[in-house]
């Protein structure tokens, strides 16, 4: 048994080293993801697009945490519950019936970064990335994930197109 533990620990050590060597190699789907996360807008006014992006983030109740006009970056976060209170009560009661402490996904923090880059004299490229961290009711991290659902990005860009129009018309 002891020998097994040593082998396991050694294996963990070796695997930790191997993982770092593989860091920062683009995976097979990165071009596909880039397409999903990117749209080209027919405007050279990157600043206006950034303002429309900031307006949209506020529409979606995000708090802007960072912005740099020259690099064209805006980042924002927001905190949300994972499930309604009723769901938490049900899980707590079920856990109590089984004499177990209730552990469930409680809160989540969303992260979004929008990057606007001037392409040429006529167009601006916008790339957005969404991610979230989920915490359980004990405050521990339950999940860390980048959000890759294409539908999320399609809806975001629809909203951004709308925001560009609304902002341009001072609405």
């Amino acid at each position, binding site marked *: 048994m002891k020998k097994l533990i040593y082998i396991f620990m050694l294996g963990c050590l070796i695997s930790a080293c191997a993982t770092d060597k593989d*860091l920062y190699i*683009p995976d097979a789907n990165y071009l596909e993801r880039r397409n999903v996360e990117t749209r080209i807008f027919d405007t050279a006014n990157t600043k206006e697009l950034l303002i429309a992006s900031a307006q949209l983030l506020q529409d979606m109740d995000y708090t802007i945490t960072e912005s740099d006009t020259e*690099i064209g*970056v805006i980042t924002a976060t927001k905190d949300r519950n994972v499930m309604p209170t009723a769901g938490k009560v049900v899980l707590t009661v079920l856990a109590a019936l089984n004499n177990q402490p209730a552990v469930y996904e409680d809160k989540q923090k969303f*992260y979004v970064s929008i990057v606007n880059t001037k392409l040429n004299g006529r167009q601006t490229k916008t790339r957005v990335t969404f991610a979230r961290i989920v915490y359980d009711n004990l405050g521990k991290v339950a999940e*860390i994930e980048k959000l890759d659902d294409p539908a999320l990005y399609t809806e975001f860009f629809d909203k951004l197109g709308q925001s560009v129009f609304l902002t341009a018309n001072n609405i």
Partner: protein
Amino acid sequence: MKKSILICLGALLLAACATTNQVALESKTSQVATRNYQTRSFDTTDKVNVMNNIVATMQDLGFVIEKADKEIGTISGFSFTNQTTMTVSVRPQGKSMIVRANASKGTRAITEPQAYQNFFNALSQSLFLTANEVL
């Protein structure tokens, strides 16, 4: 036998523990060696273009950009795919731009030179420029 094992384990623990100052200042690692694998130079004077490409490369690698500052030349992000944080700085030097990256995962610094090589390879492809070693 048990006593000697305990003494050994105690000694190991003491040797492994670094003081607060050592941890705060990374005193156990060589500054020159660290800079060597974390730094590359690119033959361009266009700082904004280099910074834009760093942002694009980081996004390709699953990073969410958290901070960017053109004046200081720094970009920071968190990768939700491998849970590492990275700061990349850009500074002009003659007709080149010096790019330096440092990354960590949780409480552990990424000290594997190959990881940085991978990052600079991806950045080179994005910039269409060769990453030159600096030191």
